[in-house]
């Protein structure tokens, strides 16, 4: 409403990937611990700009918003995040193999 034409709305449901369910769980866990509110997530989602709604999936935007809020809350540093990401990337090629490690 009040926005731009967005084409047809896909009405069929779809299952969620494991990583998407984990993003959802992460959001519930981190917000219940008091790191951020839904307002903080919405603010980051809006700040990503219109393009991100075309170029990123729903849960990709979510995990980016959660991460931004966690960094701002001081839950972990960018250095810790980068180190962990490199460690996981080095484990295996695929998400399934890397998360089983």
């Amino acid at each position, binding site marked *: 409403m009040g926005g731009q034409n967005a084409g047809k709305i896909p009405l069929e449901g779809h299952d969620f990937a494991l990583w998407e369910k984990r993003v959802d769980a992460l959001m519930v866990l981190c917000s219940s611990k008091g790191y951020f509110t839904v*307002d903080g997530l*919405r*603010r980051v989602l809006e*700040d990503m700009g219109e393009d991100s709604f075309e170029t990123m999936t729903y849960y990709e935007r979510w995990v980016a918003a959660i991460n931004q809020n966690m960094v701002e*809350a001081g839950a972990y540093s960018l250095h810790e995040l980068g180190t962990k990401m490199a460690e996981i990337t080095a484990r295996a090629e695929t998400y399934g193999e890397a998360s089983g490690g």
Partner: protein
Amino acid sequence: MAETLHNWVRVRAMMPPGHVRTPSYLRGKRGQVERPLGPFHNPEQLAYRLKADQQPLYRVRFSMAEVWGKDAENPGDTLDAEIYAHWLEPCDAP
């Protein structure tokens, strides 16, 4: 049974960058307070991890004629939106 509506209000027309909960399409529009909803922490502060004041929230009723002007297909239909007190100013009935 007709509902009793309260004061006429106009939504502030400002467009600050950043996170606010007031829909853009209602800014500058006039409506009538349908009911007060009580105080809630201000999302404009919560969004930035600031200590948040409590602000009264109101449910405001707008006519489609007010929202869409001449383009309204059903000018008498209404839309209710929940808007914080600091976005509302008193106004005369249109």
